[in-house]
């Protein structure tokens, strides 16, 4: 790092992007929310203010005024940029907005806010404002009775000279107040956006509610709830929600501010020409946002009040801001109730502003009111659906692409704080219009109160809008009288042409106020078959207003309608095609364990549903289904479902199966899953009974497939000497001619069957042959050869041949 001289007032910054900026202001190095991008400060998300400065934008020629309790115009850090024409004292009815001094310094608020915006840079004093070359004024209007007229005077001060009005105040954030601008202040807003800044519209920046601890909800503040104000939320350095923060659907964006006691706070000018590092709350965020908007206005002075809001929506980022309800709306914007569209990005805003084309004229569609009275019973939900057309019948009011959505509601109820209200857009985006407020015991209900949501920005207006009202009775509610939804209606703000569409005709920039023209270009040809009944802007599937089946979104934020999601994508419950994990060919979700089929070369793992290059142990590849399926139990490796090749420890492979290894003398009983004793005749066995012996016990001998203690009749004891010298005894079958025997062959018979006589160990036929039979000859030779002489009939038929020895 090295010191760089600050840019002179009349020329942009001289520094190159690689050089870091250094100012000699006393607290410069402590401004943690500015120094996010250096290596020293561990900052997770940057508002990129230095980035905007390096592009040459410092707020030059932009005028901001702080509506508050005054401004110390002679503060050393404010005097250079102070603008008398942007200042007034409404409380004292004179031109000098100097604050009233007292022992408590209670009127320091305006001076603190002003320093954040436009404290001079590199003057050795205190801090550096976000727009350190902007003109800064102040209106003293809070140090006295604040009436509708006081507010209106302040909000309509010098609208052709002042670009931005910053307000860090509002109705009580006590969690039970419902209040907003009265008729004069509302008129000042409307006049301001219509005629201020030579027709481009005044910019009103408002600090969101500070009543987090009182469980307040900023939808009950009519100032932040207005479409004309940019409602600013706060986040702590850590990205955590500050204790004071309220949440609601009207918040647009966020800047850094204070958090817990141990979190760093905002550094700015203080009363009595001092400097403070203790500026806190959403009060610190609104001026910061005003300063950032000033940089964008320097980049493009022709931006309208709606252009500024569009740029904020487009460039704000979720970053590391911690919220439980971040969601992506149907237009692709991330939004939450705590932070709106996220953290402001000054550099991104000035870049957008440089090449910005003005958005089309605003259309306002007031849909018909639903006046059906519905009872709101305790612990029940009232649900009402309204089919909006977006005023399709009226080309001057037709809204296709949404900006703000306002819901006017009239409800009677015995305890207002027990109510919560949600609105769901046709695209499925749910906005919480009102949350429960524990301390709001009012019986006044809501009388045509306007709730506003920014969460549907960019979505389509036409379709079913769902209003839900929950009654959650608190313990403090004595009467369980039901409330009533008397009436509700939608007011849709937006355009009939896509705000960023290239179909719009380009108009050259002019210093004159733009005429109130409409850039309406309608396509009347045939729509693609994938478009639904809402029509299209052209013939292609990417020009449908809504898709018939599903839509596929691309990285450049365009989308196209498809009949089915392509390979590698799955369809979610909002008819979007979303990408599968990289190895999946088809899937049911985006995680790697949600594959249904796999890309070529990969196999789906049974059970875990992940795609693998090869099957792991315990699984075999089923070629038919291209899946890794589980081997049988106990099997470590297998080739099919029932052919195991390797067993798990403690198991032994027996054939194709794995069974528990048992001690000698026992066998594995598969039914009881235990080792059991073999038959006493078996030394080892494969099951019960002497028939299951693998090896005979001592004093038992193998006869055929069983072990016996003595050889059966028809068997003789045979001895066989093995190669290692062991003598193995077993029972072998006698010759067929013997009934019993003592050895092998026909000469060791010991007894003969009936009809045979034992002669010298040989059994011969004992029958006296009569006359020679007709069968004698070759037939009887065959009978004798096949040992059929034992059969009585054949013995008689072949008497002579059977009697012969041999």
């Amino acid at each position, binding site marked *: 790092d090295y010191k760089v001289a600050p840019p002179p007032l009349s020329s942009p910054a001289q520094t190159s992007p690689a050089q870091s900026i250094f100012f000699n202001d006393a607290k410069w190095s402590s401004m943690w929310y500015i120094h996010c991008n250096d290596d020293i400060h561990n900052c997770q998300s940057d508002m990129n203010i230095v980035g905007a400065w390096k592009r040459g934008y410092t707020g030059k020629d932009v005028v901001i005024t702080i509506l508050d309790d005054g401004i110390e115009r002679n503060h050393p850090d404010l005097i250079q940029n102070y603008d008398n024409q942007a200042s007034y004292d409404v409380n004292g009815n004179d031109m000098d907005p100097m604050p009233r001094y007292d022992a408590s310094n209670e009127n320091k608020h305006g001076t603190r806010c002003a320093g954040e915006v436009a404290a001079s840079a590199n003057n050795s004093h205190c801090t550096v404002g976000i727009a350190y070359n902007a003109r800064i004024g102040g209106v003293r209007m809070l140090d006295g009775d604040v009436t*509708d007229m006081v507010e209106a005077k302040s909000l309509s001060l*010098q609208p052709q000279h002042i670009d931005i009005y910053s307000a860090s105040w509002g109705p009580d954030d006590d969690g039970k107040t419902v209040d907003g601008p009265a008729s004069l202040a509302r008129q*000042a807003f409307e006049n301001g956006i219509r005629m201020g800044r030579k027709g481009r519209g005044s910019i009103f920046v408002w600090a969101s509610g500070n009543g987090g601890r009182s469980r307040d909800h900023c939808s009950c503040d009519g100032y932040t709830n207005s479409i004309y104000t940019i409602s600013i939320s706060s986040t702590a350095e850590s990205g955590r929600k500050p204790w004071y923060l309220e949440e609601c659907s009207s918040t647009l964006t966020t800047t850094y501010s204070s958090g817990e006691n141990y979190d760093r706070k905002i550094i700015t000018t203080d009363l009595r020409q001092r400097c403070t590092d203790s500026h806190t709350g959403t009060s610190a965020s609104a001026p910061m946002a005003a300063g950032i908007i000033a940089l964008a206005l320097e980049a493009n002075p022709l931006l309208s009040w709606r252009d500024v809001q569009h740029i904020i929506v487009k460039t704000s980022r979720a970053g590391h801001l911690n919220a439980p309800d971040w969601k992506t709306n149907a237009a692709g914007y991330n939004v939450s109730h705590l932070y709106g569209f996220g953290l402001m990005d000054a550099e991104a805003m000035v870049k957008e502003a440089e090449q910005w084309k003005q958005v089309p004229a605003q259309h306002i569609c007031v849909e018909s009111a639903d006046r059906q009275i519905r009872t709101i019973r305790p612990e029940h939900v009232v649900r009402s659906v309204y089919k909006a057309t977006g005023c399709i019948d009226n080309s001057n009011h037709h809204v296709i692409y949404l900006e703000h959505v306002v819901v006017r509601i009239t409800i009677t109820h015995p305890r207002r704080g027990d109510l919560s209200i949600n609105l769901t857009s046709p695209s499925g985006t749910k906005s919480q219009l009102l949350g429960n407020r524990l301390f709001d015991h009012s019986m006044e209900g809501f009388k045509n109160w306007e709730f506003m949501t920014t969460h549907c920005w960019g979505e389509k207006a036409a379709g079913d809008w769902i209003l839900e009202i929950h009654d959650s009775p608190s313990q403090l509610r004595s009467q369980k009288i039901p409330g009533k939804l008397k009436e509700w209606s939608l007011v849709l703000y937006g355009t009939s042409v896509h705000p960023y569409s290239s179909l719009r005709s380009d108009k050259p920039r002019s210093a004159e106020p733009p005429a109130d023209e409409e850039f309406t270009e309608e396509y009347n040809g045939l729509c693609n078959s994938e478009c639904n009944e809402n029509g299209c802007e052209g013939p292609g599937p990417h020009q449908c207003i809504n898709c018939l089946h599903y839509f596929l979104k691309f990285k450049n934020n365009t989308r196209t309608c498809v009949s089915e999601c392509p390979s590698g994508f799955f369809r979610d419950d909002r008819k979007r095609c979303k990408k599968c994990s990289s190895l999946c060919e088809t899937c049911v979700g985006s995680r790697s364990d949600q594959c249904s089929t796999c890309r070529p070369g990969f196999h789906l793992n049974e059970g875990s549903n992940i795609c693998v290059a090869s099957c792991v142990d315990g699984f075999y590849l089923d070629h038919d289904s291209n899946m890794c399926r589980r081997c049988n139990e106990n099997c470590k490796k297998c080739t099919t479902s029932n052919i195991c090749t390797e067993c798990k420890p403690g198991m032994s492979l027996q054939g194709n199966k794995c069974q528990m290894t048992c001690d000698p003398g026992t066998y594995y009983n598969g039914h009881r899953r235990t080792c059991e004793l073999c038959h006493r005749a078996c030394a080892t066995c494969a099951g019960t009974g002497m028939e299951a012996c693998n090896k005979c016990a001592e004093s038992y001998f193998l006869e055929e497939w069983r072990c016996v203690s003595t050889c059966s009749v028809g068997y003789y004891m045979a001895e066989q000497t093995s190669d290692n010298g062991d003598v193995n005894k077993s029972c072998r079958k006698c010759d067929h001619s013997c009934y019993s025997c003592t050895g092998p062959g026909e000469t060791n018979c010991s007894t003969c069957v009936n009809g045979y006589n034992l002669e010298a160990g040989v059994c011969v036929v004992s029958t006296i042959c009569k006359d020679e039979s007709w069968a004698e000859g070759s037939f009887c030779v065959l009978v004798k050869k096949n040992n059929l002489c034992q059969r009585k009939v054949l013995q008689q038929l072949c008497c002579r041949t059977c009697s012969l020895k041999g």
Partner: protein
Amino acid sequence: APCKARIYTNHWAVRINGGPEFADRIADKYGYKNMGQIGDLKDHYHFFHSRTIKRSTLSSRGGHSFISMEPKVEWIQQQVVKRRTKR
């Protein structure tokens, strides 16, 4: 607890068709002082009445109330103090 009753002041916002000179005449007629246009709001004027109660929980009634009967007075609103909190 802060007072929840409405607190009326001795300031009025008036919408008069006819320009600043006509507004001055109307103000004089009923005892008001025309403090000038309200900001940039065309035809809207700030009227102050020194002889009514500076702060009251009741809206002011008297001879000055007949200003609303003037044909060119399109709209009139007695100003009420609002609770506004610095954040």
